[in-house]
């Protein structure tokens, strides 16, 4: 029989390993499209780890927003740009020390954050969502649709204004542009396009003497 805690631990290590390998792939793969795909995998595995930590909403948002929208956009951009592989790789060794320093600083920050959280468990208090017996997505959703309903709706209104503004600033009505009219194309009958003409079969005329001979007396 599988122990639940054991299974969770195994899952965590598996996801973490995939995350680390994929993250390494992002910075080492030669093909930039592969690097972007690798970043997608990193995000996805991170989302899985967050799910294990019971932060469902963050996980869903990461997948829907970053993987679903931002990374696909990235992929398009990378595919459209004509990047020369050699130029990109030129500075790898040169920038390596700086990269390592940044990475070390980030590591330190994360360790500090984890330490602070562990030490201040009492100050931060227990997770209110867990106390109410809800998942944190349900908790956020409840807050958003009750206490913060009006701001939520106003935010939707702001997005509407964004769409209207985008249309009014970019839509150009050009005259003299030829469009296909799909409805007319579909509705067309064979009768409108092809006219079958009935006529008598052409009878080849009787061979005539050459005109040159006729005119000469």
């Amino acid at each position, binding site marked *: 029989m599988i122990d639940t805690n054991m299974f969770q631990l195994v899952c965590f290590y598996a996801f973490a390993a995939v995350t680390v390998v994929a993250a390494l792939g992002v910075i080492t793969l030669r093909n930039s499209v592969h690097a972007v795909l690798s970043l997608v995998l990193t995000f996805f595995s991170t989302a899985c780890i967050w799910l294990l930590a019971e932060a469902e909403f963050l996980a869903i948002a990461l997948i829907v927003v970053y993987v679903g929208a931002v990374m696909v956009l990235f992929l398009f951009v990378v595919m459209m740009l004509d990047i020369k592989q050699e130029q990109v790789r030129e500075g790898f060794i040169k920038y390596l020390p700086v990269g390592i320093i940044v990475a070390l600083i980030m590591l330190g920050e994360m360790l500090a954050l984890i330490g602070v959280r562990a030490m201040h468990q009492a100050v931060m208090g227990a997770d209110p969502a867990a106390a109410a017996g809800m998942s944190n997505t349900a908790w956020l959703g409840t807050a958003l649709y*009750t206490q913060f*309903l*009006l701001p939520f709706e*106003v935010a939707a*209104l*702001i997005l*509407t*204004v964004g769409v209207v503004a985008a249309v009014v*600033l970019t839509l150009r009505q050009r005259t003299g542009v030829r469009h296909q009219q799909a409805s007319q194309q579909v509705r067309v009958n064979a009768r409108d396009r092809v006219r079958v003409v009935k006529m008598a079969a052409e009878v080849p005329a009787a061979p005539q003497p050459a005109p040159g001979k006729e005119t000469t007396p």
Partner: protein
Amino acid sequence: MPTFNDILILLPEFYLVAAACLLLLLDAFMKPEQRPLLHWLSIAVLLVGIYLVVVGQPSQTVTAFNGMFIRDGVSEILKVFALLSTVLVFFYAKPYLQDRKLFVGEFYTLTIFAVIGIMLLVSAGNLIMVYLGLELLTLSSYALVALNRDSRLSSEAAIKYFVLGALASGMLLYGMSMVYGATGTLDLARLHMAATQTGMPHLLVFGLIFMIVGIGFKLGAAPFHMWIPDVYQGSPTAVTIFIGSAPKLAAFGMAYRLLASGLGDLSQHWQIMLACLAVLSLAIGNLVAIVQSNLKRLLAYSTISHMGYLLVGLVNAGPEGYASSLFYAISYAITSAAAFGVILALARAGFECEEIDDLKGLNQRSPWAAFLMMLVMFSLAGVPPLFGFFGKLLVFQAAIHAGFLWLAIVGAVFAIIGLYYYLRVVKVMYFDKPVEGTEVYLQKDVSVRLVLSLNVLALLVLGFVWGPLFGWCQSVFIG
């Protein structure tokens, strides 16, 4: 949970949102030649909005959506005048837009969305609502400024407005986050209580400073005024008139909600800050306006100085000061609408009437237009017995009662300096010879002429009968 009663309290806002969406749809299915119908429908929509605001006025302050939205006397009066000045904008803007091929339905829907933003902002009961209302207003304004997208000046103005506006929003949000950190609440009513008990007064004042920077940007008070002249000059005059009128009421509403409702107990801190902003605005606005040759730019600097006067009233930090500031904001919104209204009425296709020299000898060509412009200039300058005079008088009085005699004296000195450039416009119209080979005449459109004349004459009438309006302004701050 929100109830039906909550929706009833927000009825004017809900109605306007629905109407704006319907107008948007209608515009999409409308032929260009039917568009004047949209113009009249938009005006009708706003008038019905005023009716709903006035009819649904509650006898005391009510809140909706867990205190997110406050409907009280202050918000009512601001909403009525914001809607009214937008109606004026729609009247004046039509011929101008038609002449320049800018007569699109989006002008109307975006303006109505901006007005909804104003209404939500002045009714905000929560820092989040203040921010969202403000964003709705400014986002619509950015798009309106860029409406004439083929114009270089217009695009430049829009970019400047957008970048500086985003910066100001960032400052405001940063200040709000500090205030939240110090008090643990976003609700303005609870913030008022928590502000006195906080254990971190320095953090609170730090947040307050950033919030005042945000308010200064939105009011256009010096030293946060850089965007005003370029935006006023660059945007189509039909948009400048909107930006110059109704949003000033919103800026007052925002300052009142944040400073008086939210952080009223910190008034000894923000009084001094506002006094500094006021003096700088009065100085920069009035002195730089003297050298302007562009009429729209001159009015932009005049706006900066007027926001200075508005701040002089707010410095009082009591009901009297708020009432006088509110009165000032209303008088400025109506006068500014009239000022740009005259410019719009004199403009025609291929002629913007933006330069002061364009007005040379206006009296000989169109005596009525010259007379209207003269009244507007006198009102802006604060010449008795016009509307603008009493606004200035009341804010000075409020400042003196709060012990800021020096501020009132500075204000009076700069009012006299300001008189110079307003009178210069009058002199150009009445005593200069018209430029040969040019033509300036008043718009043929009857509705524009009628509304403009009524608007300007209202300045004269309200100059004599300002009592009831000021009484209304006072009554909303009592209790």
